[in-house]
């Protein structure tokens, strides 16, 4: 049995895995990157962040065109060709995928297409199309990610019951679609489908959509959903899905009462679960928590000294940028450097309007009984927001009262996802509201809302009425 040797094996080539592979290589290590898919980039690139943003962009044009009449610009009815749309979207994915492949090649990172299986704490077996391959490693980084949760009772093998992976393929524009779960994936895809013309119903078991975000930010998305979706059904559970001819019969349960309704399609977006079945982890000292996420220490090291884990597979916020950061922490731990840990992980929901936040939220402060000051700046007072008729937004700062230090930033509104980066830098740098208020922001831009928000904290924002 032939064994090849490498310094670091990275299992999974998503935004965590390929970042780890490249950074490890840049640090002079010999790297082998394994992915079971032929396409590098993981869920983010192929079935997540990237395709959903492409579709959101495309469909937004439809809505904007439709709503331009009052500005004196009139468009005709849009003609939508799904095949062309898919081709365009897939073209973006291909471009990105080949970019990653190029980067790997230039760096001389060995990429193997196959399924990785740990034989022990030093050896991984890779099942490729060309047969088995054994690789002996010094260190391994597990970055195999997560997949959509589809409970057995929902999994009827009916293609009309979709997860986000299938929904992003947009096989058709269904007349109506039920979205189970009002998290960010459900709300983003709901926006895509409703703009394409589907009647969207979102059903959420809890009493709010987008749990984790502050209610005053979520309100703006709720306003949009109320206007553009058919319904957002809170405090309601889905008991059962059943095939009913070419449609899906859905049994709901609310306040102890059950009722049925028929939908053309159903998207199940109730969460994501770790991909750690069939990895051979039982042959290592890696341990899992009760939800089957891999347990790691602050250096991303598992209970097996040779094996690290990063990204969705270790739980927490399942976000690409968290995985990429953890990739660096793991590599630096392997090369013996110290990475100061940070827990400022920004979150963005690409709904319409977008919601973004970083650091401490008001909700979290309330739960932990932390006393904070909150400064808010409504976008109705932003000249820039008025110029494109999107005053449905708000910027807010969460501030430590005694020191005026910025602990958290929350933004709802057009482009919030871009704006939040400034908030992240402010928090990471330990900036105070004073610092933000005294940094000149260009006019007229939405970034001014951050500055004016800081001014509002001191009670003298230019554009806020007294």
């Amino acid at each position: 049995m032939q064994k090849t040797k490498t310094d670091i094996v990275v299992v999974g080539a998503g935004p965590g895995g390929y970042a780890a592979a490249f950074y490890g290589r840049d640090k002079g290590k010999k790297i082998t990157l394994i992915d079971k898919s032929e396409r590098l980039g993981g869920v983010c690139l192929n079935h997540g962040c990237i395709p959903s943003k492409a579709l959101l962009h495309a469909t937004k044009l439809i809505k904007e065109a439709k709503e331009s009449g009052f500005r004196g610009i009139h468009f005709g009815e849009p003609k939508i060709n799904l095949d062309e749309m898919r081709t365009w979207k897939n073209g973006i994915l291909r471009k990105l995928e080949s970019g990653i492949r190029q980067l790997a090649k230039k760096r001389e990172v060995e990429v193997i297409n196959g399924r990785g299986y740990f034989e022990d704490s030093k050896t991984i077996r890779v099942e490729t199309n060309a047969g088995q391959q054994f690789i002996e490693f010094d260190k391994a980084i597990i970055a195999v990610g997560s997949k959509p949760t589809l409970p057995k009772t929902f999994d009827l093998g009916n293609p009309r019951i979709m997860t986000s992976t299938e929904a992003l393929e947009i096989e058709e524009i269904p007349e109506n679609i039920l979205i189970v779960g009002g998290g960010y994936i459900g709300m983003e895809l709901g926006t895509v489908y409703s703009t394409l013309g589907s009647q969207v119903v979102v059903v959420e078991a809890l009493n709010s959509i987008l749990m984790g975000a502050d209610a005053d930010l979520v309100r703006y998305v709720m306003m949009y959903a109320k206007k553009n979706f058919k319904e957002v059904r809170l405090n309601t559970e889905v008991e059962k899905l059943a095939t009913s001819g070419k449609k899906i019969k859905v049994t709901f349960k609310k306040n102890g009462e059950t009722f049925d309704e028929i939908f053309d399609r159903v998207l199940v977006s109730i969460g994501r679960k770790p991909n750690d079945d069939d990895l051979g982890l039982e042959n290592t000292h890696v341990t899992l928590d009760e939800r089957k996420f891999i347990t790691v220490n602050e250096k991303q090291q598992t209970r097996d000294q040779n094996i690290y884990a990063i990204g969705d597979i270790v739980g927490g916020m399942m976000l690409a940028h968290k995985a990429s950061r953890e990739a660096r922490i793991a590599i630096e731990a392997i090369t013996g450097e110290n990475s100061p840990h940070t827990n400022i992980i920004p979150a963005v929901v690409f709904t319409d309007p977008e919601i973004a936040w970083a650091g401490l939220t008001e909700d979290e402060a309330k739960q932990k009984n932390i006393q904070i000051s909150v400064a808010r700046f409504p976008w109705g007072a932003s000249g820039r927001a008025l110029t494109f008729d999107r005053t449905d937004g708000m910027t807010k700062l969460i501030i430590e009262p005694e020191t005026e230090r910025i602990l958290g930033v929350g933004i709802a509104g057009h482009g919030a996802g871009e704006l939040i980066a400034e908030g992240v830098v402010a928090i990471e740098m330990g900036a105070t509201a004073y610092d933000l208020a005294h940094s000149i922001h260009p006019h007229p831009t939405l970034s001014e809302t951050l500055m004016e928000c800081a001014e509002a904290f001191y009670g003298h924002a230019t554009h806020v009425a007294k």
Partner: protein
Amino acid sequence: MDIKVPHLAENITGGIVAAVLVKEGDSVKKDQTVVELDTEKAVAAVPTKEAGIVEKILVNVGDNVRVGQTLIKIKTTSAGKQKDTAEVSEDKEKPKPQRNNQQISERGSSYKYHSSTDSVPPTAPHVRKIAQDLGIDLTMIQGSERGGRIILSDLKRYIQHIQNISEGRDNIPKVADAVSIPDFSAWGSVKKEKAGTVRQKIAEKMTLSWTTIPHVTQFDEADITNLLALRKKELSGFELQGVRPTVTGYLIKILVPLLKKHRKFNASYNVAAQEILYKEYLNLGIAVDTEQGLIVPVIKNIDTMDLVKLSKELESIADKARKRAVSLEDIQGASFTISNQGGIGGMHFTPIINPPEVAILGIGKAKEMPIVFEGKIVPRMILPLCLSYDHRLIDGADTARFMKDLVEALEHIT
């Protein structure tokens, strides 16, 4: 009305919340204790100055708090209108930011970063990286920027500062634990427990003492057979006066004239001013073993006390220490300390000096030993003695003379 951490005593900058004795919505009377603070060595009660209703409790048990920090908001029964604190964004009355820039390193009060929101010290990633590489605890550094933000020059100043300490040019307790703690989880599970204030203070003081004072420990032994016989004889008489003097009591009685004769052992050495400070009072620190750890309460003016008074004092102060009822005054002002392990059973050891004192006497357990006494081998009770001294001020010969006098006094007590 806000109930804040009061000024407790000199050099006490804060403490840990030991107990919150009220709930939100409770009505409180004037002077009622609402919070107990665990300070260096004593529990301090914080009372409310006015009667009213507890509106908001801002701290939890275990929180680190600093002097001036608000603990509880009370809606006073007399006050007319009370501001609603829920919507802070419209609150015009903004708290003043803390800007005590240079306070730490120069003055050396043991600074510890505190955040009312439990946040880590504000600083940029590049500063965090350097601190982590050097094993420096950022909470020990007071940032000079607005909001206490730590910049590179603050870190440099702090590093300079700990260098000064290790070179003995600075007598300020500011040494961070520079030993990096490995990841023990590689070898097995570890249970973490927060060190209490007493433990933190002991660690700080011992490190300071050990790193700044050149210690020497002199060992000796005294035959206390006669002393024990004397004690036995006198005991019934003392019991009528309600006390049972211990060997420690007799020993302290003997120490009084010795410390007056050997003045250096009851002195302090001011390195900066190059001065020797001879104290004309005799305050004795007594090391007491408590559940929280070592506490050293002080008996003031032992030279004015007879054995009865001294024995009473010894008993009450040790009892108070064990119950954590000593006040901050009770633990300050010692000029010499004794540490008696005899009750537990130790022999010789090397006690660590409690600065700014310059000497400490350790006592072991008296043991029956075969001794040549008046030409014959006889069983005698032998008491181990160990005297640690600061060699900057006291020389070996000084100590040998002190020890000789002590042993003689113990052996020839009448």
